[in-house]
């Protein structure tokens, strides 16, 4: 893996990521909640000390593996005051007052969880229609504004925190895809030779990939920050929006840079590049990435985004990353 930080702290990420990568490889048909519980992921999420590494490893790994799994729903469960998920699919606000969600690829969901800044509501799954996407392997579930009329509030849920968790779960996947594309591009330009040398020796090619590295590093910083703040109702919403914004940007920069350095071969169906592009476009659509800058601008006017002081200041002594 390409290292984009000063030193790798021993926070468990590497080990969890190795397990995640293996899991997604062994279960291409989908990873279920039982699998997650088996390797202890749900327990790690409950502990603030392990939650950050566990979430990053899972969702970045999931992005890199292009895997569909009910992991965002498992991640947001902690904000639902004991509500029984039972295979529900989290739905985010879409255009025109409706909601969109990404099913996990497993059994048909029985329920939908409509998550927005003000509420978390439950709706039977039969209210949803399927929406085809640019990604042939993926259909989104869509619920129109009218169809949400009889949605029932989830008692005791924390909407801002729930929404932040789903957003961060998706922005981590975008970042994981970006990191994967950076490696893909880098490995390609080291081996592809033209004019008597690997094309990675040319400055134009180098600089394209360097910009991808910068964008991925920025997204990493924002994702970690959002995870640090994920339980803070005052800060989590904006932190999550910033993570969505920088994750969106990292994905856009990575797909542009990787596409360019891969050249014609990356444009073929045979090459894996397009699978990342398609999936990322779908996740961006789900997140409402197209107007993320305006949403951040409006939200930033009234709140702050950096973590509670003590957490950060303490970490100076430990020399930990962020």
């Amino acid at each position, binding site marked *: 893996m*390409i*290292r*984009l*930080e*000063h*030193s790798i702290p021993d926070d468990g990420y590497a080990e969890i990521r190795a397990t995640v990568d293996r899991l997604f490889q062994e279960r291409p048909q989908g990873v279920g909640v039982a699998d997650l519980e088996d390797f202890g992921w749900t327990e790690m999420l409950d502990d603030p000390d392990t939650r950050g590494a566990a979430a990053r490893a899972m969702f970045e790994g999931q992005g890199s593996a292009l895997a569909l799994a009910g992991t965002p729903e498992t991640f947001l469960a902690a904000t639902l005051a004991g509500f029984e998920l039972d295979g529900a699919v989290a739905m985010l606000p879409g255009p025109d007052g409706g909601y969109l969600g990404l099913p996990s690829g497993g059994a048909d969901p029985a329920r939908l969880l409509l998550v927005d800044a003000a509420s978390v509501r439950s709706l039977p799954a039969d209210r949803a229609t399927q929406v085809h996407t640019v990604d042939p392997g993926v259909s989104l579930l869509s619920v129109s504004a009218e169809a949400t009329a009889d949605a029932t509030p989830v008692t005791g849920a924390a909407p801002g925190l729930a929404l932040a968790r789903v957003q961060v779960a998706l922005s981590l996947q975008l970042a994981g895809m970006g990191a994967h594309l*950076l490696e893909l591009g*880098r490995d390609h*330009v*080291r081996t592809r030779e033209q004019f008597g040398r*690997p094309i*990675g*020796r040319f*400055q134009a*090619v*180098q*600089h394209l*990939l*360097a*910009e991808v*590295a*910068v964008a991925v*590093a*920025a997204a990493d*910083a*924002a994702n*970690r*920050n959002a995870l640090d703040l994920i339980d803070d109702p005052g*800060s989590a919403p904006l932190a999550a929006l*910033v993570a969505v*914004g*920088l994750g969106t*940007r990292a994905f856009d920069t990575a797909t542009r840079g990787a596409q360019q350095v891969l050249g014609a071969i990356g444009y073929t169906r045979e090459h894996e590049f397009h699978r990342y592009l398609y999936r990322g476009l779908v996740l961006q659509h789900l997140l409402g990435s197209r*107007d*993320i*800058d*305006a*949403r*951040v*601008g*409006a939200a*930033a006017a*009234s*709140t*702050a*985004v*950096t973590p*509670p*002081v*003590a957490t*950060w*200041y303490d*970490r*100076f*002594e*430990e*020399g*930990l*990353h*962020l």
Partner: protein
Amino acid sequence: MSADVLASAELSAEFARWLAANRAQATELSEAALRPAPATEYLAAQKALQSWLYEEGWLARGWPKEYGGTGNDVGLRAAIYDLLGAADIAVPSTVNVVEIIAPTLQHFAPGLAEQLLSPLVAGAEAWCQGFSEPEAGSDLASLRTRATRTEQGWSISGQKIWSTRAPGADRCAVLARTGSPESRHRGLSLFMVDMDTPGVECRPIDDMSFTQHFGEIFFDDVQVPDDRRIGDVDGGWAVAQYLLQWERGMFSWLRQSALLGMLRQLPPGDDAGRGAAYQDVIALRLRSLGTLRALAAGKSDGPQVSIDKLLLSRAERSVHELANRTRPVAVDDGTPGWHERRHEYLHSRSAPIYGGSAEIQRTIIANQILQLGKESR
């Protein structure tokens, strides 16, 4: 937009109490420090603000006691810069040099550090760096200013350029060639030269932001004792690399606070522009804090700071372009602060050039992080 600061609740409260009692003075000195002015006048304003903040205790905190501080604490210094920024008090730009030179001297020449640093920390002295030359900008390793052995120490001859705040500086950290002409980075050494040594001549350079940010320095057989050498003979490149980490790391932190302040002061409107610029500054803020932690723990990795520098030049551009779109600098509309805004915008255009150009940073990332290019390991 409220500012969430790095400082602890106790420190924040103490600062707020102090500020309430000293607001007028702080504002006056801060405005003077931000006013575009010729080199020596500008430098004097920085030193006035720095020495006042030092006497009030704020710029003494976090420096080793040997240099007149309260005890070495990078996090505490970073927290105070954040508090100042959130209160719209300028951190004098002379502090940039303290943050670059002090850790470097501590690391490579602790005796010199103890001997020389106190007045720098206190704002009684201002120093500069002599690295770039007319023929050695991006290709710093090709520099030609020569340091030749003498009985008493060294004789330095040559020329430096683009030395920030050199006119009026008391001392200069000069990177000179002690090896053969072809030795490139392997034949360099760093020296602390007093600017009033016979043979040193310094001239300000008029720049397009209507100030004199840089100077050029001529060295004509300047006598420097060997105990002013920082690090090993021919070991200057390693010293310079370490120095650059602090330059790119701490300077990024100092700038993020100022840029957040600029965003705060913009009138509402253009949410998308504000949101994009805000993300750029927050990315810089989060990334540079991670770098400071690594520097404080002695676990920093030079090439990684190139990422910070690129995030910095991006944030400078997006905030200043937004500010310019909101309140154009092209014409003097008679509103107060036009001269400051004009200067700020024009100066921001040098951000992707100074401290190692964006092109150099990308090349460092490509070679040393992505392992591309001939020099890759």
